[in-house]
């Protein structure tokens, strides 16, 4: 419907009225003393929402950003200090389904915009930072710009869904699209450098960008989106034979017409793209199936194998063929990457692995397991094939395991650790969970069945996980929680007993914690830090590199260095980085390890000697967030040699962050231990 003049006039009049009401609400709040401001907030929020629902509302709110902040709308809320806000949290707020949260978040973005445009000289936030923040917000919420409102969104968010779309269009119009794309591409590369097993989100983002770039209405600057081509071509049009994304049938007939040289060219093209990005094109899966009938040489080429991998492939050719036949399909293309890395790790040479994989291929899944896999991934390929594909990914990418949006960091960490350190045990675990729908572990000689244990840490079954985690995590989670319950009544932190029993014999039986469980206060910091150096720092442990991955607990802090919660991680190694700074390299089961923990402590995931999937911090910064670690009590090290100034510096980091008020209701949380 074309807007008529009358329509436009009445729309403008309506906006005018609503803005007048907003102004009065802001005035009333501004006049009110701090302790009474909350009584005036409701009216401001209602007025804001009503203005934002109107055309031109976002601009009206933007021009009142300073008045809103000065009236105290953001006071004592999460939005109080714009300089510490995190772009990645904007999306969840906007989709929270809570109208007030959405309105506050929208107002916060419009404040950023006013600051970025120089209309609001903010005391603590620069225009550049505001602009950067907004382009990151836009980049991570690209679907709000390009995708239509989904039914799910509509059901959850109601009318605010449209409000959010309007807001984003306004933001993008003001900030410009080019910068979004650059940031977006950087962001995708940053995530991919951590080589996660689950890449569905990244794939859908790349797909959307590809569509967007082909839209003639979108004018992109010449320089925008550096590196985007590589991402797009890794999924579509990777090689000559699928350049124009021709569909599987055409691709297949082209392969059939090729000679060995042509196939070799295709194989190495796909392999290069895969190892470059960690993404696998569905065409790559098809190529691999095709090459089963050709030669193992070409197969190795298509997997981009190292000498070790090639050796494994040739030695266990029949098994590898069978794995590809069963599990590698266009829908499970990512498992090609898992398979390649699995072969490169050489673990097929460990005696139990090959027979265990044969068992996996023939495994009969319980109805529960079939249902869960089908519900999460659909029924093509069938659940058994899906699970084998998942096993390949997990064995190939031990550090690519993620916990999804679930509080089950211990279970994710355990799966990762087993895949890394004890892969045949992992395969056994998968069989128990998938075939028997029951896992039994032992705690101090007593069996614990996942079936008999009532509840785990997670209250609902997770669905956003890789196939292996999807089946195994619910069992592990219940067992872990049950082990905790069996420690009830023991003095101190239950992880002392749970961690070694849960993860494996290699977990050090020496247990160090710097939080008093009763009071939540910090205790024996000096000794804790010296022992940590003596166990892990090569300069104080006799230059001994870490042998087995060790579970540890960290106090996660936000970008303002405020305590967020306890978290389970794995210490993988301590070593000097390329700049000769001693760093701790660790695995974080969070889906994105690159996190800003405040006070200059920024977890790095690439560029400081990290291997794919590793996170790292300088040794002292890592120590400053550590609260639990395990060590071998028989290996003494030289704790007394650690310089006092090193300890003092680390304690400084602690005092400026999570140790600051040690802790709000800390005793309870410490009792419960790492939860996520």
């Amino acid at each position, binding site marked *: 419907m074309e807007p008529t003049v009358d329509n436009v006039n009445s729309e403008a009049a*309506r906006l005018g*009225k*609503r803005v007048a*009401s907003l102004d*009065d*609400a802001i005035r*009333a709040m*501004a*006049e*009110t*003393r*701090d*302790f*009474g401001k909350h*009584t005036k907030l*409701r*009216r401001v929020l*209602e*007025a804001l929402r*009503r203005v934002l629902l109107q055309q031109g509302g976002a601009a009206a709110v933007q021009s009142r950003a300073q008045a809103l902040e000065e009236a105290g709308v953001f006071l004592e809320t999460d939005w109080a200090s714009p300089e510490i806000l995190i772009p990645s949290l904007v999306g969840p707020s906007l989709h929270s389904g809570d109208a007030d949260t959405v309105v506050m978040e929208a107002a916060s973005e419009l404040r950023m915009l006013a600051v970025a445009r120089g209309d609001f000289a903010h005391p603590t936030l620069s225009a550049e930072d505001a602009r950067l923040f907004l382009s990151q917000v836009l980049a991570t919420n690209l679907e709000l710009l390009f995708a239509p409102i989904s039914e799910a969104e509509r059901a959850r968010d109601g009318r605010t869904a449209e409000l959010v779309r309007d807001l984003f269009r306004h933001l993008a119009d003001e900030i410009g699209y080019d910068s979004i794309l650059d940031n977006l591409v950087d962001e995708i590369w940053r995530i991919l450098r951590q080589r996660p097993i689950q890449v569905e989100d990244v794939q859908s983002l790349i797909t959307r960008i590809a569509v967007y770039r082909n839209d003639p209405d979108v004018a992109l600057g010449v320089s925008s989106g550096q590196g985007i081509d590589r991402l797009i071509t890794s999924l579509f049009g990777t090689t000559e034979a699928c350049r124009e994304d021709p569909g599987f049938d055409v691709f297949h007939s082209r392969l059939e017409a090729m000679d060995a040289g042509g196939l070799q060219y295709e194989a190495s093209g796909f392999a290069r793209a895969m190892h470059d990005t960690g993404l696998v094109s569905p065409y790559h899966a098809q190529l691999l199936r095709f090459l089963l009938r050709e030669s193992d040489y070409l197969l190795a080429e298509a997997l981009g194998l190292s000498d070790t991998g090639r050796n494994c492939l040739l030695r266990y050719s029949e098994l590898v063929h069978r794995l590809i036949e069963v599990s590698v399909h266009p829908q499970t293309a990512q498992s090609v990457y898992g398979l390649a890395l699995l072969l490169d790790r050489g673990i097929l040479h460990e005696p139990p692995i090959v027979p265990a994989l044969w068992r996996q291929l023939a495994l009969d899944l319980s109805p529960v397991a079939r249902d869960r896999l089908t519900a999460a991934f659909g029924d093509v390929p069938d659940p058994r094939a899906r699970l084998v594909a998942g096993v390949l990914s997990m064995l190939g990418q031990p550090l690519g395991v993620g916990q999804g949006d679930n509080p089950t960091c211990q279970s994710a960490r355990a799966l990762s650790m087993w895949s890394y350190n004890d892969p045949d045990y992992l395969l056994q675990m998968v069989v128990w969970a998938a075939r028997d729908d029951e896992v039994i572990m032992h705690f101090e000689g007593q069996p614990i069945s996942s079936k008999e244990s009532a509840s785990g840490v997670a209250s609902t079954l997770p669905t956003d996980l890789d196939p292996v985690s999807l089946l195994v995590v619910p069992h592990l989670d219940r067992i872990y929680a049950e082990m905790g319950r069996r420690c009830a009544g023991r003095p101190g932190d239950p992880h002392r007993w749970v961690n070694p029993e849960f993860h494996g014999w290699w977990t050090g039986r020496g247990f160090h914690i710097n939080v008093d469980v009763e009071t939540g206060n910090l205790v024996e910091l000096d000794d804790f830090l010296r022992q940590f150096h003596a166990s892990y720092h090569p300069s104080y442990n006799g230059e001994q590199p870490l042998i087995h991955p060790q579970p540890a607990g960290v106090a996660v802090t936000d970008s303002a260095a405020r305590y967020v919660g306890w978290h389970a991680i794995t210490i993988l190694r301590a070593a000097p980085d390329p700049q000769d700074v001693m760093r701790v390299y660790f695995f974080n089961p969070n889906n994105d390890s690159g996190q800003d923990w405040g006070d200059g402590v920024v977890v790095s995931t690439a560029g400081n000697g990290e291997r794919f999937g590793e996170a790292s911090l300088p040794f002292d910064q890592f120590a400053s967030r550590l609260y639990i670690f395990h060590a071998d009590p028989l290996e003494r090290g030289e704790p007394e040699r650690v310089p006092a100034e090193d300890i003092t510096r680390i304690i400084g980091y602690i005092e400026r962050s999570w140790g600051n008020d040690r802790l709000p209701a800390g005793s309870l949380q410490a009792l419960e231990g790492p939860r996520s």
Partner: protein
Amino acid sequence: MPERELGTRNPDKGYVALLGWSLAAVEALDRFDRRYIVVAPEWAEEYCVEHDIPYVPWNFERLNDRSMEIAETLQKEGVDVAIPLFEETVEWAGAINSVLLEDPRLYGQAMLLRDKALMKRRAQLGGIRVGIFEEAHDRDDVIRFLKRVNQTLLKLDGDPNDPIHLKAFDKAGCLGHRVIRTPDEVDTIPEEEFPVLMESHLDGWEFAVEAWVHNGKIKFLNISEYVTLGYSVFVPATPELERYRPQITAQIEKLIKAFDIEFGFVHPEYFVTSDGEMYFGEVAYRPPGFKVFELLERAYGFNAYHGLVLAFDPKTTEEEIDAFFPREVVDASGVAGCFGVYPRRRVVSDLRIPEQTEDDDYYESHDLSKPVEETVTKRTAFGTHWGLVYFFGEDPYRMRDLLKQQEELDFYV
């Protein structure tokens, strides 16, 4: 910050004590130019200490032997006058002010204002029209009164009865207010509600007045129009009701004379019958419920609590208070109204503002909260609403219709 300056206290002006805890009142006074102190139960202490709010603890139960203690405490503190915020603190204010202002009559006056039966008698003595009323001590009294009222109205057996109203003697507003039409309904009154005040029903137009009084003179008189009693109210009233302003003003002048009110604030309720006759309902010596103060601020832009302080403070000058208040009706920038929401369903799970309401240009805000319990307690008498929905606009008639429409909508589903 600008409000710091607003809060600068003028030592030449009075020092007031607020009786009872009201965040809106405290917040308003904290940015006004008078010194103030909050007199409230101990549970308010933590909040007051945290926010630097001057405070003395006191439990307002029945007046007792210790009542002098708080009066003396406030006197020692240098307080000039006490302002009651709630019905329950009206008699305390009377007792305290009789000490602070050395005027023993103030206590007697407060007792009159606290007892609805005494209040009506006093009004009657002052030449003010009231309906028929009587005290009831048991159910038989109620039945007798219902019959007699209807006989007086020359109703025959079988004609539908005119209802009678039952109210607690000393409760604010609609608390304990019941309407009785038939003798059967009398049985539904719980024993513990007796004694009560019974009144004949006046088939008229009910409205309320808020009047600020200084030196025995009305300084600002607002007429609040009810759309449906217990549901909605708006200010200023429609021209239809405002045309009675001269008569209403005369009535209030009679009232403050009858009750010997020199200063402060009165909130009476009246009926105007179809022939233009005014009937007195009751009067309260404290701010009205239903957020009328907030509505006044929205419509006129003045803070009604500041007005309250000016009207109570013996050190307020005539010029000061005249300058403070705007002119009635003409100075209002619009009409502000609110609607009290009662869930209409028996089982509710969520709060949802109807789109029809939300989309209306007049809609502004609400203070409803999400339901805590799913089952809605059955309303006896006039229960308490679950919160208010606020509106603001230009046309009082449209406001009246809009508020009426809300009664047909579900806010809780």
